[in-house]
């Protein structure tokens, strides 16, 4: 019986080494490409005919797009239109990576902080650069809420800076922690089912309890996978809004 943490191991599938760096094609890379292919297939085959009266598949694609479009519209407003493709890509990639990870023998890409922090750091630098490009040095007024009396500046500025710097970390840790914790929990309960089943006799009957728990947890994990992808995209729009519209 494999331990609950073995599912997160990175295994090189095709070793590549460039100038002393290990750039192997790993199971994580493979599942990222898988998520990319599923996304591509979903969008391509959904919109291939692109009829005026959409069929089921086309409706699903359009509904998802409208959902992201609405989210950006409510959080950023008219200036956010050009960021819809970015938020949409982010949302659908994380959603499919989360959901694909729930299949047995699958690897959950988003259960690695290296992956989620790469996203969050990219979003953070993007927010800073967009803010600086749009507002110049006035962007730093983000650290000083309007109407702060001068004698509070020395307190408010460090607090706001820490609050701002903690954004990429909260964004990445939330997704990574949710996915990792859920998968560990699932694996532990599935482990109970197997070991109780092997024990035989009355213990095999008791094994129904962790099995029922696994089924319930799996449903919960499905919701968590969707909600976390949504929260990640939502907070990205909230952070982008601060850079674009520059007011709290």
């Amino acid at each position, binding site marked *: 019986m494999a331990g609950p943490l073995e599912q997160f191991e990175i295994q090189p599938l095709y070793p590549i080494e460039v100038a002393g760096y290990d750039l192997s094609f790993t199971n994580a890379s493979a599942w990222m490409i898988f998520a990319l292919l599923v996304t591509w297939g979903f969008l391509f085959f959904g919109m291939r005919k692109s009829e005026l009266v959409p069929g089921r598949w086309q409706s699903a694609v359009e509904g998802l797009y409208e959902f992201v479009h609405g989210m950006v519209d409510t959080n950023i407003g008219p200036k956010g239109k050009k960021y819809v493709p970015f938020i949409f890509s982010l949302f659908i990639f994380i959603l499919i990576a989360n959901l694909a990870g729930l299949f047995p023998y699958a690897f959950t890409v988003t259960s690695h902080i290296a992956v989620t922090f790469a996203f969050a750091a990219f979003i953070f630098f993007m927010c800073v650069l967009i803010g600086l490009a749009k507002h110049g040095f006035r962007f730093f007024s983000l650290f000083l809420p309007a109407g702060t009396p001068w004698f509070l500046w020395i307190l408010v500025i*460090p607090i706001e800076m820490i*609050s701002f*710097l*903690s954004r990429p970390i*909260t964004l990445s840790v939330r997704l990574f922690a949710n996915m990792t914790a859920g998968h560990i929990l699932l694996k532990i309960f599935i482990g109970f089912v197997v070991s109780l089943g092997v024990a035989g006799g009355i213990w095999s009957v008791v094994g129904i309890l962790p099995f029922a728990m696994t089924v319930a947890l799996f449903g*919960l994990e499905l919701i968590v996978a969707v*909600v976390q992808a949504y929260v990640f995209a939502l907070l990205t729009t909230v952070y982008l809004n601060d850079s674009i519209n520059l007011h709290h």
Partner: protein
Amino acid sequence: MTEPRPNELPFEARLAAARARAEGSPSPKQVAANAFAQGTRLAIELVVAVLVGAAIGYGLDVFFGTSPFLLLVMFMFGLVAGFLNLVRAVSYEQAKITQAELDALPVVEDDDDDEKW
């Protein structure tokens, strides 16, 4: 025949009935998952801000050689920033307009074919 066949009802009535059937109240599992997501979000907001503050303080201490004073000061700032994050996250959730409130708004006829943007 005492009651009209479904197809004889006006379209709006059938649509409203179908909407009511489809929406219903969210399942307990959905409520639990949302509450869980909300809870982890708030917990992480608080903890991470404290850690970032402490990390900045430690870095400044190493740079200026003032250990451990800046660490302590920035730790406190981090704590305050964490609570600020908490307040912002909660008030953001509360500021959301619910669908019921939107439905209560008066409906204005759309008089042009322009897109929203």
